[in-house]
């Protein structure tokens, strides 16, 4: 068990050393978070009370709505692109071959490779929330942190499933992964990132119900801004995210295993 735990940690240790060696990059990313937070703040000031009716279920404030959306949407980005880009990077750099002849299974290698990105995304979320609450005065006094944590776990599980699916395509196609592209684009457009899905035409709203991100962002906002209880969050948000996770995780692992076997047959496991 300890040994199994040590492998993801050694990846985090390795990635941290690598990242820390690029000194300017860290400062630039923090600056990016601050500047985007300011942009959303000024946009919310510009529109003021416009669209309050749409935002009422989340407290009526656009700034808090969009900040939570942007912060937690970064998990989707990491889940979708983190896993596939770790494969792609390994293929391009040449490290994947050296990893694959070790005594560590491919799924552990792939998931562990993206762990640092998840931790970095968590740090970014913390910075967003810190700026929102401390600097810009977002009220999260009644936040249901346990509910938010549960939703976060289910969000990561369901997003990661899609990420593994996307990685399967990268394993075979190398470049041009349709799953990641389609899922990220649709999620940004229809998942309620910048605007509530209630502004969408009805037929598009039905499409948004098919995306886990819709329930993840909705649940997160209700838990943090409105302090909804677990029972209130359970249906539909927690329930649907749970169903997505239960369906997508085994499916994506099965497809990924198939992709690895095919790449081994084709001899393209480490090609790029």
């Amino acid at each position, binding site marked *: 068990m300890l*040994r199994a735990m*040590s*492998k993801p940690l*050694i990846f985090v*240790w*390795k990635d941290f*050393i*690598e990242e820390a*060696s690029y000194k300017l990059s860290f400062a630039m990313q923090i600056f990016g978070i601050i500047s985007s937070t300011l942009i959303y703040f000024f946009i919310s000031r510009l529109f003021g009370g416009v669209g309050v009716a749409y935002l009422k279920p989340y407290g009526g404030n656009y700034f808090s709505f969009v900040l939570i959306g942007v912060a937690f949407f970064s998990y989707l980005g990491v889940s979708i692109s983190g896993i596939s880009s770790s494969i792609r990077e390994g293929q391009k*750099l*040449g*490290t994947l*071959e*050296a*990893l*694959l*002849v*070790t*005594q*560590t*299974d491919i799924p552990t*290698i792939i998931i562990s490779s993206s762990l640092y990105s998840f931790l970095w995304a968590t740090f970014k979320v913390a910075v967003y929330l810190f700026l929102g609450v401390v600097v810009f005065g977002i009220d999260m006094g009644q936040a249901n942190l346990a509910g938010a944590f549960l939703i976060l776990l289910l969000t990561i599980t369901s997003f990661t499933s899609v990420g593994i699916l996307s990685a399967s395509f990268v394993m075979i196609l190398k470049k041009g992964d349709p799953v990641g592209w389609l899922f990220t684009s649709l999620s940004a457009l229809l998942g309620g990132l910048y605007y509530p899905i209630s502004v969408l035409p009805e037929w598009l709203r039905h499409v948004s119900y098919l995306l886990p991100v819709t329930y993840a962002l909705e649940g997160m906002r209700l838990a943090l801004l409105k302090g909804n209880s677990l029972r209130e969050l359970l249906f539909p948000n927690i329930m649907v995210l749970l169903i997505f996770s239960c369906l997508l995780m085994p499916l994506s692992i099965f497809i990924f295993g198939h992709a690895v*076997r095919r790449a*081994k*047959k*084709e*001899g393209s*496991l*480490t090609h790029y």
Partner: protein
Amino acid sequence: MEGMMGNFNKDKMTCSIETWNLSKSFTIIKTYRDLLLHPFRKKEIAALREVNISVKQGEFFALLGPNGAGKTTLIKILSTLILPSSGKAFVGGFDVATHDREVRRKIGYVVSDERSFYWRLTGRQNLTFFSALNNLPAGDAAERIKRLLQLVELERDADRVFKDYSTGMRQKLAIARGLLTDPDIIFMDEPTKALDPLIAHHIRGLVKERVMGERKRSVIYATHNLREAEELCDRMAIISNGAIRYTGTVDALKNEYRQGARYIVKVRHAGNGLLDKIKAIPSIKSLSLHTNGSSHDYIQFEMELETGNGNMSHIINELSKTGGKVASFYEKEPTLEEVFSRVVSREG
């Protein structure tokens, strides 16, 4: 146990690595034209054809072949990175296609590609990372890494970042990584590729004296360098166009592929027209002049005799009749290069 070697006699149990009619074909990426005209037609290229080799425990086995012969494909199959198209391959008694985990526990893999390391980590950090992935407990790993760094003479540079290493140092670190788990079986894929002759010689010495000196292991060493194969291996296989053309020792190979015997002859007091007279001796197939001594004092030449015409006293007599005095006469060993080109051209 399913997947372990089945019909195996006692003698064969001493084999660390064995392949049975191992073949591998790769599908060629289609051009847009092919995609349009023949969307369902597969284009394949054979990388390995019915390869049969067996490497005994503790044996240093060279896989010798030109670029593109199939050496890397074979090593990648044995390392579980590629699945064979047909045939079987067993490493440490386990089928590489069905028991890849067990195989990876038995092997060390030394790649020549320096990109397989993390360039912004130090040498020691790289080894620490790979030792964790190979299930080495942290305490044991630190001790093992220290010993390996000494073994490959990198202890003083262990804490420098990998990107600052020279090519030779990177290759040494690759060897240390291959030895992390103290494996019984090591695959080395052209470890001296891209090294200058001096460093390559040093690495060969390191492999021979230290890696093999540490303890007896089975090694498959892929190379296109004939000297390397001759210097290091117990036995070798020559591979060309995906097929094994020869398996055996270097000496046996030289004997087997010896054509007409070649001799170096030095004749003193060589008068005018001596060479023409020698050329006229019936059993001499060809003759080439090596040196011509000053003032026609002596000549040295290489001659090839017809196969089967090995009566030396007859030849020496004939040479004496030409008017010169035979000062030395010895058989020339065929070089590995000559033998190699004969093997490849004859079977190719």
